[in-house]
């Protein structure tokens, strides 16, 4: 499956067929710091993402 990351925008390929929380763990992303977007909606950490899915991990932190 494809994961879109931001700031800067880039994409990585990881294994699908597992829960969002496992994908976040593999990428060392703290769940509290991102929205997980699939298509035009948000998904929760317990949802299973398929190999053919694309998800965006949109950071929520801003500084200054």
């Amino acid at each position, binding site marked *: 499956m494809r994961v879109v990351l931001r700031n800067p925008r880039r994409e990585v390929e990881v294994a699908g067929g597992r829960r969002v929380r496992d994908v976040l763990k593999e990428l060392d992303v*703290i769940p509290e710091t*991102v929205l997980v*977007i699939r298509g035009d909606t948000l998904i*929760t950490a317990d949802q299973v993402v398929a190999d053919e899915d694309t998800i965006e991990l949109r*950071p929520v932190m*801003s500084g*200054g």
Partner: protein
Amino acid sequence: MKCRKCGTGAVIELRRHNAAFCAPDFLEFFRNQVREAIRKHRMFTRDERVLVAVSGGKDSLGLWDVLIEEGYQTSGLYLDLGIYDYSVESKAKCEAFAAAREVPLIVTGVADEVGAPVPVIKEVTRRPPCSGCGLSKRYLMNRVALEHGFPVVATGHNLDDEAATLFGSVMHWQTEALPRQSPALASTHPKLVRRVKPLYRLSEREAAAYAFLRRIDYIVEECPFAKGATSIMYKEILSRMEDASPGAKHNFLFGFLDKARAAFERAEAVSLQECVRCGQVTTGTVCAFCKLSDQVKRAT
């Protein structure tokens, strides 16, 4: 995961509330938290005109969206910081937001007021860019509000912003900063407008989710100067604590507000006067904004 209210599929989990919500119930939860903030701190009434400081980001545009939906009399204030493409894009987002909702937007250029945009201020002062930028924003928000007759300025500061600021102040024991940290700062001088933060009960992630679910077109890109900012470092530390112990950020901030802030307020009383140069409120003779402006003019 199911929505706590209606039992349909959830789109967001809020671990600190031990809850998950579907989109409509999350939006209502979000609005309720804003309503509670406004009510509890008597931030403003429906008879008052509210100046909403907007940056083009999720927090301030989300806040403006809630206040418009709730029927408040609002205008936006966009401060153009002159930070390359980031400012061009964020200004366009604010203008599009205001045009679509037919609400007024005031645009003020920092360069016109200080003498140079934020990137030049950074070079001249040799201080972190967020320092001169924050100073200019606070000053101009107040002055523009006074000039246009607004009794109150609302900013999009959220729970994470407030917890990170508190963390920074405590790490350095900046006791003079602690009394000023509040969801609502009353007007303590005729030339100081009230400053309020109606999102202080909501996390940064909740604000992002609100903006996304409301289809608000906000700037996702980070300010180029925010990279390496200490506020981001504090937020990351706090988010790790939150991940290990949901509610940690909330308890840190709300514990301070409920139990500790008043003690620092008593200890750190300051006397306010008017700057001999611009007439705005300061604790010294010449205000920090005029000093910054002098420094910029000498160097450019």
